[in-house]
């Protein structure tokens, strides 16, 4: 449905999207996440033929975005960021206008409008002008607009921004529901949203796809050790000695003592599938009274940090480059050069 190959787009000297490639099929909900300015919106704008890429190719619903933009747009429903709408139009007038432009036959228009009003929960505001609506309702009108022609592909740029928690959940459920038949590509920077709705995650940073896969796959890729919190009744030294014998235990930190219970934070190496099970077995063998056993696994937030900021900060050479540059060049140049250096390093690590 969507096929993107080595898409590149720059605004002047800033590289917004850099060699982005991915594919997505019907029945998928693809979450597009990344920090601000990572290139999410630009990619979406290219896919909806609002902008043209500098190089690379993209095809949507089997049509090339360069050669058949009209056919692409017919198959796509698009909700831009912050749902820009004509504030002086009535809700129904606006949807009617959309049915006309979308070339929905006259006899179907009423039915289509009613159906999107129903899906998006707009029945309480049909009488109003868009300008009178709250942010949440505007967002819904924007969504209704993108659904009006029942497109096989939906591209939504931050569909839940500005909504209250219950509205957010409604929209998420709607996205999930729509994702059963359609391809939904949506961007967000709210991480729980991604784990709640997406069947696949595309993580983008500084214009490049840094991760692509299901949540589980991405968590698996993160090079990070697991932490197990355990609290056991008994003597500190004996417990430590026994804990050290457990497979995969790398470091034991004593956290607290209370009522004869010793609490520890144990770091285990990543290869261990279920560290808690091993700890439990050890407790049974040693006849321990266990007060707490908790496995802190890597969550999406850590994955995100790892793929975006983490890598960059941890890499040493950047500092050297910065210091070298600082001696000679004015400040603006440092920024660009550092950026280049950072991008360079991300590429290198990716490969």
């Amino acid at each position, binding site marked *: 449905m969507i096929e993107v190959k080595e898409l590149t787009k720059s605004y002047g000297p800033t590289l917004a999207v850099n060699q982005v490639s991915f594919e997505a099929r019907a029945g998928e909900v693809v979450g597009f996440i990344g920090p601000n300015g990572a290139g999410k919106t630009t990619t979406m704008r290219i896919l909806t033929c609002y902008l043209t890429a500098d190089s690379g190719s993209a095809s949507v619903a089997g049509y090339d975005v360069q050669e058949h933009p009209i056919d692409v747009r017919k198959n796509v429903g698009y909700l*831009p960021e912050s749902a820009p709408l004509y504030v002086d139009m009535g809700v129904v007038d606006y949807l009617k206008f959309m049915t006309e432009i979308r070339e929905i036959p006259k006899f179907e228009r009423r039915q289509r409008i009613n159906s999107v009003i129903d899906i998006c929960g707009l029945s309480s505001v049909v009488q109003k002008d868009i300008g009178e609506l709250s942010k949440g309702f505007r967002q819904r009108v924007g969504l209704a607009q993108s659904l009006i022609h029942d497109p096989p592909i939906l591209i939504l740029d931050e569909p839940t921004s500005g909504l209250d928690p219950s509205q957010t959940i409604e929209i998420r459920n709607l996205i999930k529901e729509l994702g059963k038949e359609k391809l939904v590509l949506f961007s967000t920077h709210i991480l729980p949203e991604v784990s709640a709705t997406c069947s696949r995650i595309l993580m983008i940073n500084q214009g490049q796809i840094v991760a692509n896969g299901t949540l589980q796959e991405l968590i698996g890729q993160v090079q990070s050790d697991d932490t197990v919190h355990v609290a056991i009744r008994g003597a500190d030294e004996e417990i430590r000695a026994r804990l050290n014998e457990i497979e995969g235990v790398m470091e034991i930190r004593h956290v607290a003592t209370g009522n004869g219970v010793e609490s520890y934070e144990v770091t285990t190496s990543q290869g261990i599938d279920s560290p808690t099970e091993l700890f439990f077995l050890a407790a049974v063998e040693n006849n321990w009274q266990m007060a707490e056993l908790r496995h802190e696994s890597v969550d999406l937030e850590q994955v995100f940090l790892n793929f975006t900021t983490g890598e960059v900060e941890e890499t040493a050479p950047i500092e050297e480059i910065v210091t070298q540059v600082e001696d000679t060049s004015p400040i603006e140049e440092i920024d660009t050069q550092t950026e280049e250096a950072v991008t360079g390093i991300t590429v290198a690590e990716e490969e």
Partner: protein
Amino acid sequence: MRNINAIFKKEFRSYFNSPIAYIFMTVFLGISSWLFFRTFFISAQAEMRGLFGLMPWIFLFFIPAVTMKLWAEEKKIGTAEILMTLPIRDFEVVLGKFFASFALLAVTALFSLCIPISVAIVGDPDQGTIICGYLGLLLMGAAYLSIGLFASTLTENQIVAFILGICACFLLLIIGEEIVLFSTPNWLYPIFSYLGLGTHYSSILRGVIDSRDIIYYLTIIGFFLYLSTLSVESRKWR
């Protein structure tokens, strides 16, 4: 064609959904009636030459006010992003918007018919020159509209679009004036005098409908609508 119609209807309705259309029509008709009747009873001549002669200058401020929001507002509030990702070609949107603004002008001209009607009641005006005057008015107005529309595609600030529109129309208007032509080099003289918006208008006002004048206006309109389309498309590679 259906798309142009949809855009046209939306834009035309939006003029009347907002105060713009009412303010435009009231103030325009008010000012032009006043300018007309101020001297009408003194000169006691049943003709509208004087008013038609003033129109290029009145339009200079009124027409860019009609077109300034057409693109600037879409860009400012971001609705252009939805509009330009609908299955519709850029030139269709440009044409739809142009026709909507022209329709507003035509409706206003229709209301202004009360002036020649009252002239006809008190005297016996030459109907031919009045009909020619209206034709010239609409052609020149349409040319102004296309220029204003182009100015509006250049910026997302309506005030800037307004001023730019005035400047562009003003330039194109004065290059045909005698006082400018007087000081232009000889080789530029025919070009300037041909391009001047006013030159063709005054020849239509004289009651002579020359196909060259009509072709001139249609060319100007087509040219600026084409520039508008290019300007709208330029978002893609900027």
